[in-house]
């Protein structure tokens, strides 16, 4: 700058105001003035700091010429490169394939061997994920309960009503694959496959709540169309027709849970779902 000793006011003022805003942040914190005050003050301090620095840079730019720097990259001249190669391969390092191969084998073996403990990240040894994915803890005679653990009777559902149910005695958060949706459809509307006609109790039908596409809960039931929709990717299933997919990316129907009643009239499962629940997997 032409007069380097003199501080330009257009730079000094924003800097001082920035300090003031920073003090405002400290005050806002002490007085607990809330998020907007904190963010406004600290953000404002940085705005002013940016303005001051930008102004300062502009003042310098106005006085500076374009600088030119030569670019000296490129391949190393051949003699020097050859010297480098030679230094790398010089004796006493033998060019023996056996030697280098043995070293490579050792390093690869150590690397490979240390991958084994990664298996400990699996929950338990000796369980094949495919077996775990194929079944759920639903057993014949298991009562269906709400998330609060209350057993459900078919009469508890009004026509058009929907309840999310789990097996009695299991923590639903740790057994997501059991999540079931109970729906009562108007009498006579169910068109289930012949072998499943006795899987319902008083027009209450039970399906897995996990979408067969990406496993999101199929949480939206539209009673007028008797359709279940998944809010993730908008797959739609026809509840009256064995939960066949009618729109969206889901490739399979929602698996159905065979229902019955126990001595006290509560809904129970009569076995596991009709198919593995949730999304398809690699070696399904």
């Amino acid at each position, binding site marked *: 700058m032409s007069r380097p000793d003199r501080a330009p006011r257009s730079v000094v003022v924003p800097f001082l105001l920035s300090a003031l805003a920073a003090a405002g942040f400290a005050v806002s914190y002490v007085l607990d003035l809330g998020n907007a005050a904190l963010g406004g003050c600290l953000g404002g301090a940085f705005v002013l700091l940016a303005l001051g620095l930008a102004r300062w840079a502009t003042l310098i730019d106005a006085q*500076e010429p374009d600088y030119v*720097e030569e670019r000296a990259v490129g391949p190393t001249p051949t003699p020097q490169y050859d010297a480098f190669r030679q230094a790398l391969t010089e004796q006493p390092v033998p060019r023996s394939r056996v030697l280098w191969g043995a070293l490579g084998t050792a390093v690869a073996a150590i690397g490979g061997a240390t991958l084994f403990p990664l298996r400990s990240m699996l929950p338990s040894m000796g369980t094949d994920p495919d077996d775990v994915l194929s079944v759920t803890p639903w057993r014949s005679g298991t009562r269906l309960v709400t998330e609060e653990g209350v057993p459900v009777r078919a009469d508890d559902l009004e026509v058009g009503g929907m309840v999310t149910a789990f097996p009695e005695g299991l923590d639903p958060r740790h057994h997501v694959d059991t999540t079931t949706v109970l729906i009562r459809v108007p009498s006579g509307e169910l068109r289930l496959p012949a072998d499943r006609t006795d899987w319902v109790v008083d027009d209450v039908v039970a399906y897995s709540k996990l979408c067969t596409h990406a496993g999101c809960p199929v949480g939206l039931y539209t009673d007028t169309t008797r359709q279940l929709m998944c809010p993730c990717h908008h797959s739609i299933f026809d509840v009256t027709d064995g939960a066949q997919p009618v729109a969206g990316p889901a490739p399979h129907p929602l698996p159905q849970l065979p229902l019955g009643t126990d001595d006290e009239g509560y809904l129970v499962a009569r076995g596991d779902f009709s198919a593995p629940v949730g999304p398809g997997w690699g070696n399904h």
Partner: protein
Amino acid sequence: MVTLLPRPKPMRKLDERLGFAATGRSLLAKVFPDHWSFMMGEVALYSFVFLVLSGIYLSLFFEPSTGTVIYEGHYRPMQGQEVSAAYASAVRLSWDVRGGLLVRQAHHWAAHLFIASIVVHLCRIFLTGAFRRPRELNWTIGVTMLLLAIFNAFAGYSLPDDLLSGTGLRIFNAIALSIPLVGSWLAFLVFDGEFPGLEIIQRLYILHVLIVPAILAVLISAHLALLIRQKHTHFPGPGRRHSNVVGSRLWPAYALRSLSLLAAVFAAVLLAGGLLQINPVWVWGDFDPATITAPSVADWYILWIEGALRLFPPLEFHVFGLEVANQFWAGAVLPLLIFGGLYLWPWLDRRWSGDRETHHLTGRPRESPLRVAFASATLMFMAVLLVAGSEELLVQWTGWPVSAIRDVLRVLVFVLPVLAGLVGWWLAESLRRSDVGHTVELGRKELLAGLPRRRHAAEEGAE
């Protein structure tokens, strides 16, 4: 009074030990190009700095555990509720830690800015051909950083164990499951068994706060080291040659400008964090695998995968007797194709253009209509997927059924990118063949000259 020798200044003392002054002087004189478009990478760098600083603060209060606790803080609707420690601490950070909400929200906004600035930076490098020899290596480092940035944003988003993040993890789990042969083992390995798994929050946490940021820090250092070694590209102009760099010196002009940018980045994310609400986890509620919020729309950097998952038809293939699950194509193959294409681009570009030269002078985008066409088509493809990912908003606005909107989008996802590519090609070609400076200045004459038929005629005439 005894005369004391003048005390050496600290800098001098350090130089006496290290002898850095000569190197330091040449470093201070390092020349940087002045064009504004070269600042995008710096925005990303400073966003990363902010993410690290704010992240350290958050880690002092966040508890990465799925174990349950009773929330007893200021947020009344949740008082006395039994929720996971992760969720409770995220809500405490927002309601009970003074200044916590500001840092949490600014951290989230900075993640958006980080990824967005990397994408814009990538577009600049792509369109000006700055990825060409000798900078192919730095291009691949950059693409890797974009990938890691997206992954880490997703991991961070998943940590609070709220209903929205749990749904994202559920979909991530389904995509992992879908990988042929290894899918179920991989998903079980990552999630500690069947979804939701008890360990996933802890595992994502260590990735999010240590492993991925450490890799990013190493890659940023490598990115900058290569940049210093090879020096910047610059646009052609008076006195600008292949063999030089023209611009400002690091000190003082460039450093002040860059520090100003740092302050501006911090200002933007802090103002946004203070004034604009983002991801209010206490509204979503804690994660319950049996329930879901509707609408559930992901953050934009991951939303294109969601859009693709929605648009993909309900097909399932069997290859050698193995089922290839539906979500594999949109969830795993598409991202692989997109990032595979990005990684390979310098070599694809070289093959198609036949250009194997070393380039330090970059061109304007118009100089390669092929690249403009590719960029336009890809960005349009992503844009349609983003719309598909948020189609519930279209349903709200138009009142059309979701299936009708989906049918339209399934056509548009192919048609619009082709159109965008052709228009991009045409505009670039028109600009290339005319003298106008900007796209808005293109007139009828220039546009006609850019049409393929005219070009062939003109080329034949020239021969």
